């Protein structure tokens, strides 16, 4: 029941502006922004690479994301776009270190051509402003949230990934909402089913008994196609969530 109280507060403040924004964006999407989707039409088979957008939280969230990414073979999940918050000063270096080690590991394998290597290590970094700083007032945060959403929308529209991977904190919300709005816009236009952007949210390993607010929003709103929790006890409270073990 606590969930609903939390969510109600969020909805009261954010639902009306969000709804207006999404309607506006759909119109915008229909008439102005109708450029082709970067990946082009995809025919999904197991060998096709998956364009992946990875949202890095900062600090412990970033560390956890890289622990999870170790299981995502770079030759299957590429090109990769890393999305960083603009106040996150440490994650950019971690992206470079991770991608460098991915490149080294692939280069050490036999039969990997330079061409393969270039494709499999193809990655970029995008920066998104934070929706709300700690201790910012609700009034001014309405504007910063809209700005964050706008930037997130441009990033997701330009990259048009097949998969968005995120694990909190709230900085990933604008990106997820943007993906949802674009999906809605795309399919009201008769877009192809396999061009849908899938959102996977991995709840923090620190959440053993309660879901984070970000997790609750993505779970209850169904913006995330999959919510992973890392503890079975938490899974029991959220039946649509997936328990697939811990990432570290």
């Amino acid at each position, binding site marked *: 029941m606590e969930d609903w109280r939390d969510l109600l507060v969020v909805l009261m403040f954010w639902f009306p502006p969000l709804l207006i924004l999404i309607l506006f964006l759909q119109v915008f999407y229909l008439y102005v922004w109708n450029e082709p989707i970067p990946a082009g039409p995809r025919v*999904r088979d*197991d*060998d096709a690479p*998956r364009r992946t957008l990875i949202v890095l939280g900062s*600090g*412990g969230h970033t*560390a*956890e994301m890289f*622990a*999870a*990414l*170790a*299981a*995502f*073979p770079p*030759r*299957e999940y590429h090109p990769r776009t890393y999305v960083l918050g603009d106040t996150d000063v440490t994650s950019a270096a971690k992206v470079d270190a991770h991608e460098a080690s991915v490149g080294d*590991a692939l280069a050490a394998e036999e039969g990997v051509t330079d061409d393969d290597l270039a494709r499999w290590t193809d990655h970029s970094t995008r920066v998104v402003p934070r929706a709300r700083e700690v201790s910012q007032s609700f009034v001014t945060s309405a504007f910063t949230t809209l700005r964050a959403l706008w930037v997130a929308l441009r990033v997701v529209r330009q990259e048009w990934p*097949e*998969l968005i*991977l995120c694990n909190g904190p709230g900085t990933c919300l604008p990106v997820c909402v943007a993906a949802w709005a674009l999906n809605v816009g795309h399919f009201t236009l008769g877009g192809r*089913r*396999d061009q*849908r952007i*899938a959102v*996977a949210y*991995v709840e*923090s*390993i*620190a*959440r*053993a*008994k*309660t879901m*984070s607010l970000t997790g609750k929003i993505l779970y209850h709103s169904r913006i995330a*196609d*999959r919510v*992973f929790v*890392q*503890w079975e*006890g938490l899974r029991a409270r959220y039946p649509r969530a*997936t328990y*697939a*073990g*811990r*990432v*570290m």
Partner: protein
Amino acid sequence: MGRAPAPRRRAAAPPSASPSTREGDDDDDAETRTTTRTSKTKTVFVTVGTTSFDALVAALDTARVGEILTRKGFKRVVMQTGKGSHGAPRTLAKTRGLRVRAFAFAPSIDDEIRGADLVVSHAGAGSVFETLRAKKPLLVVVNDALMGNHQQELAETLHEMGHLRWCAPEGVGDAIAAFDETSSKPYQPGDPAEVQRAIRSMLLRR
């Protein structure tokens, strides 16, 4: 492409539950090299994380904690004190037979964890799992100024599984005194492959 995920950093951890007697790699240990290996400088490492946790630093910075530590055979304290205003522990440093080294932040605390015989940590998932992966005895101190803070649930859960002990800052002295370094069950690190498989099948099913 049913390729297995790239193998990574799993190899170097022997399944040993006993507190490690591995030498720390800093030169402080030079003076003990002449004696036997069991009498190496027994070290406790304290970390408060990226913010501040003055309550923990203050609770440790007492003559009583110094006495408890020396009674348990600790000869060295390494402390990461963060942004707090308490700074380096001065009272603790006066304890006879106990060397205290303090620093605010370090780019990585991996080496400190590996060189310790007991880690006293804040409840952040980062240092908790780093310590468990290094198979070191771990005492988590939950910041009760952040009551209702979700960090407590991680400490509680891992305690129920037998991987660590936890306490409030005021109780840290007693908790160290009562700490049995041989009782912790080693933590088996998780495997993200399952998450990846679930995501892959989700993408294929569309």
